């Protein structure tokens, strides 16, 4: 338990961590059960966002700026990942219609 004093109210750092865990698990559910490759990419973005929330929460708890710096780095990596992933998807969709990620399991064009 570590109470953060925010605007006169006491919020606990573990609330933020719990929310981050819930969002991460929701993203993991999306990756596991959805079939559309686009939605899987969206779920990965959700997981990255949840990790960012945990980083910023720890950064605030320690009053140390390094967590926020790492969150910024992770945002950059997420943007790069989204760009490359979407480019690959567009390239695949140009030759055929993929309704199920399992259609791509043979790793051939």
């Amino acid at each position, binding site marked *: 338990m*570590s109470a953060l004093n*925010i605007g*006169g*109210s006491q*919020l606990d*750092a*573990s*609330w*933020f*961590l719990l*929310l981050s*865990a*819930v969002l991460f*698990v*929701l*993203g*993991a*559910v999306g990756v*596991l*059960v959805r*079939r*559309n490759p*686009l*939605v899987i*990419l*969206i*779920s990965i973005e959700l997981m990255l*966002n949840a990790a*960012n*929330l945990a980083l*910023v*929460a720890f*950064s*605030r708890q*320690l*009053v140390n*700026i*390094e967590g*926020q*710096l790492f969150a*910024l*780095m992770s*945002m*950059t*990596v*997420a*943007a*790069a*990942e*989204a*760009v*490359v992933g*979407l*480019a690959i998807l*567009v*390239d695949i969709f140009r030759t055929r219609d993929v*309704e*199920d990620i*399992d*259609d791509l399991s043979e790793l051939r064009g």
Partner: protein
Amino acid sequence: MAIAVFFVAAAMAVLGGIGVVAFHQPIRSVLSLVLVMLALSVLFLLLSAQFVFAVQIIVYAGAVMVLFLFVIALLGPARELGRGRLRFQGWLSALFVLVLLGLMWGLLQGVQYRQPDQGDLSFFGTVQSIAVGLFTTYLYPFELTSILLLVAAIGAIYLSRKRIDDL
């Protein structure tokens, strides 16, 4: 007041997260993710991370999500069929997710918080404090990140080029 803001934003984030997983049309999933990102940006403000808040709105909810929307518009409305589902996949993923949630819950029970550093909270999280960290101690990772962005841009251009035999 801050507690109310936290719970409203947290509820919005969780609802958006459920929406990402549950909606059948990808465009609705993307819009749910925008909701999650806006809720998270409010939480970043609560955690006095002003610069991360601005970046979250501009880069994430703005640029990255617009990119997703463009690709969905380009590819057309994709249907998602239930066919071809592996047997037991739903059960296995439910089991995996329960284990993951239990693991994280156990981790959260055991978190030992260190005493916070002596820091000035009015200075913490401002553009100035971010810049001091980014351009002194973490200059090398920062430059590497810019190289990563360059590589990603070149890769995207290479992947989406027109092939000779398409012409």
